[in-house]
């Protein structure tokens, strides 16, 4: 116990949660192996990914050192800055692949929606926790407005994937804050009632086509359905044991589109099979449960809500990405967290885990004080 205590205090001093770090490092290693394979054994690409992972881990460890009181205090200003930047994107943003997501500040190009992935749960958590839980209806209504502003701005870009993630991060705060089940059922009912209206009155023909293609990709196998069909072929042909690392024909022969980014899970499934998938799910489950434990153990409501929201949003990442590449959900641009190639989401995700570590190591601090 004593040695464990001293050990704990060492991790404590550097604000590191050991189990979480272990889970993240293993995921990062899986990411490198899979990106190497999915990029067609492109070493330069893999090196870039390794560099980004390293950078993201540094960001995580730096954020973990920030005192929670400061985090709480800067929640709203950060949110306000985020909204201003999003406005900037809408007005002066750069268009890339048909979507306006980037803001060129002269020196660097930034994607303000990534900032919002952290600022939104921070702000909603701050707004609710200020008054105790469950929130009053008035607070709840105001919290919704706070949530709606960035969500709509991002959906407008259009970046449906990020909008969904940001909306869920806010909704998770509200759910964890204990809003009544009646209200939750009411919202679910309202959304259910809205779907037919959306379908018959608000959606364009091409959008309906897209939904139909999601429901049955084979109706357009060479067009919109192609991606999802090839993805399912990759996953299904992997079987139980997989084709082996670097042996996935769907990915190596380039039949699978977006294979190192959004569809990297298909590459993983093809090469490592159901066995690998179960292992990956266990690893994600381990990280999520560890996050929920941190949320439970946190002493202050703000920290509880923020930690819970961050880890559940992480879960939504996994759910939406795996759901979409395996044909359960429509294709929206959500990467597989910590595995997909790409720097921005990796940094944001690990920054979030930095906050989780700050919360995890903050609780003892509070108790000692």
């Amino acid at each position, binding site marked *: 116990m004593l040695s464990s205590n001293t050990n704990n205090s060492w991790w404590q001093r550097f604000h590191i949660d050991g189990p979480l770090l272990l889970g993240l490092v293993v995921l990062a290693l899986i990411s490198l192996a899979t990106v190497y394979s999915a990029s067609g054994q492109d070493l330069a690409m893999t090196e870039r990914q390794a560099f980004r992972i390293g950078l993201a881990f540094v960001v995580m460890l730096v954020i973990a050192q920030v005192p929670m009181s400061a985090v709480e205090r800067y929640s709203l200003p950060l949110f306000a800055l985020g909204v201003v930047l999003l406005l900037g994107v809408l007005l002066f943003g750069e268009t890339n692949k048909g979507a306006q997501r980037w803001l060129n500040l002269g020196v660097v190009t930034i994607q303000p929606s990534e900032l919002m992935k952290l600022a939104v749960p921070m702000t909603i958590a701050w707004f609710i926790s*200020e*008054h*105790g839980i469950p929130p009053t209806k008035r607070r709840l209504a105001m919290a919704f407005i706070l949530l709606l502003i960035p969500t709509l701005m991002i959906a407008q870009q259009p970046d449906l994937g990020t909008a969904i993630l940001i909306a869920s991060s806010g909704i998770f705060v509200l759910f*964890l804050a204990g809003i009544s089940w009646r209200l939750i059922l009411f919202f679910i009912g309202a959304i259910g009632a809205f779907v037919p209206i959306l379908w018959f009155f608000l959606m364009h023909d091409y959008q309906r086509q897209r939904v139909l293609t999601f429901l049955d990709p084979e109706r357009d196998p060479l067009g919109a359905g192609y991606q999802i069909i090839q993805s399912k072929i990759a996953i*299904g*042909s992997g079987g139980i044991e997989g084709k082996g690392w670097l042996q996935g*024909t769907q990915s190596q022969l*380039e*039949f699978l589109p977006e294979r190192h980014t959004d569809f990297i899970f298909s590459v993983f499934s093809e090469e490592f099979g159901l066995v690998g998938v179960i292992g990956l799910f266990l690893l994600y489950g381990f990280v999520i449960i560890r996050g929920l434990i941190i*949320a439970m153990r946190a002493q202050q409501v703000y920290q509880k809500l923020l930690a819970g929201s961050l880890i559940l949003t992480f879960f939504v990442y996994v759910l939406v990405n795996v759901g979409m590449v395996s044909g359960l959900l429509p294709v929206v641009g959500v990467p597989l967290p910590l595995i997909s190639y790409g720097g921005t989401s990796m940094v944001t995700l690990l920054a979030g885990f930095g906050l989780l570590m700050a919360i995890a190591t903050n609780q003892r601090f509070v108790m000692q004080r």
Partner: protein
Amino acid sequence: MKKKRVTIRDHQFESALFGRRVFFSLIIVVIAFGILLTNMYHLQVVNHHSFQTRSNDNRIKVVPLAPNRGLIYDRHGRILAENRPVLSLEVTPEKVPDLAATLVRLQQVLEFDDDVIDEFHENRRRERRFNQIILLDRLTEEQAARFAVRQHEFPGVNIEARLVRHYPYGEALTHALGYVAKINANDLQKLRTEKKHANYAATRVIGKLGVERYYEELLHGTIGYQQVEVDIHGRTIRTLSVQPPIPGQDLHLEIDIDLQQYAYDLLGDERGSIILMDPHDGAIRAIVSKPSYDPNWFAQGITHTQYQSLLNSRHSPLLNRSTQGGYPPASTVKPQVALAGLDEGIITPTTKIWDPGWFQIEGVSHRYRDWLAWGHGWVDVTSSLVESCDTFYYDLALKLGIDTIHEHMVRYGFGERTGIDIAEESAAVMPSRGWKRARFNQPWYAGETVSVGIGQSYWTTTPIQLAVGTAVIANRGERPVPRLLRALQEGDIILPAVVETRDPVVLKNPTHWDVILDALNRTVSTVKGTAYRAFRGAHYSSGGKTGTAQVRSIGQEEKYNAEEIDERYRDNAMYVGYAPATDPEIVIVIAVENTLGGGGSVAAPMARKLLDFYFAQEQAHAQQ
């Protein structure tokens, strides 16, 4: 805001509420992962087989491999049709950075017409992506060398070697050997209905004429397959398995190419046909049809202009005169008519008639003229053949009647296909009452029977029919089926061709064969014989019959003058014969169209030269 914070906060309540929500979330997380995993199980275990199949369909392509076409040799093993590697310049447009500029630079380096570029773009539209498209299909050595030096300047452009059919003897053998040409829509349709198209998946050409067409199935061989792994762009990554194609069988023909070439040259600028055949087994030693054309035009891809020139030629070079040309046989069929008379007992070897130079049906004023205006005098069957007396046959034909003549002539093969191994064969016309009724819806007139007696009227024969008809006499009844194929070769195994015969002609009195054979021998060996001058001094014995066929009927008082009338209406010169006179080993047929002379003066001398050449050849081969 600050004021509202006075509310007393129940930390325990908050923790419990939060805890319940976290627990609920955990359940959702577990259920969600359960759903994802169930779906993965469904994809990777339940439907694994179907997805694996689709994955393989994606990556594995079966590439058909064309078999090498069998070679064709003459009877002495000289090659008549071969597969030559030809260098072609091929372009993969997807690999060329700037296609338009590249084509212009290639044009400067290799010097070709603008048509070539147009055709290239035409071909490109039909090909799959990442396939090589032929720009120039026959590079000269100079072009190949010039390109090779600067190849590095042209990424995506390669020199490829393909096999192209080549006929070294060119036009001398076209109609018999035939040619291969690109498979067209009609060929494809035919292959489909015959369920052979799978075997042609990689084949570019098909036999269109002659031996190449008749023995297409043997020459073609069996397709092979190669399984390759391809990427999404259709590029081959590696070969997984190969099932090699089985090459087509080599054919050995009975043709003697030296004899063939000699016969071809002998015809000179004349139009017509020459056939030399072994009467015993129908082996064709030479078979010429003129005018001809170069079969390599078709094998290498004929141009529109070339094809039009063949189609529009007044002299029909595309027609195989030996098997499709319907010539009035004229006097060359007198031996068969005489045999019909002898066999029916209408004449005997000693029957004589008086020939005043013309023949008249009793009660009709029309005179059928003999070629010898003043007449042959007393004529028996022998002298009627030696001197080619017409009047004898006018009389005989009328006595036989068309029904009996038809019945006999069919036994010699007239009016039906001989069954030679060339698909382009006509049955020509052996007229009968039924035929005339069907053809013209008219009754048969006795006057027409008179002309049939000298092989005129509606009677037409192909030279190959004459060869068979002559062989029957030379064989004393045995009737061979003409045959170009001598043997098949598969690897080292040589399978001789099957020798076919048809029902022989059986005479009631076989000595009548001797009467006719003797007469035909006298035609070449006695002074009065129509072929005497041509065969004088030959150091082999032979028999033969000349013929001079009118192409247009001549009016009652009109005199025929070859020099004065239109070339197209001039007489055809014919000769049929065999050698040696006893136990003949070769039959010869010559038909020359619209000549200035007749059978005796034009065709018989050619026959003499050919037989001289033939025997000299045989002697030379025997000595070797």
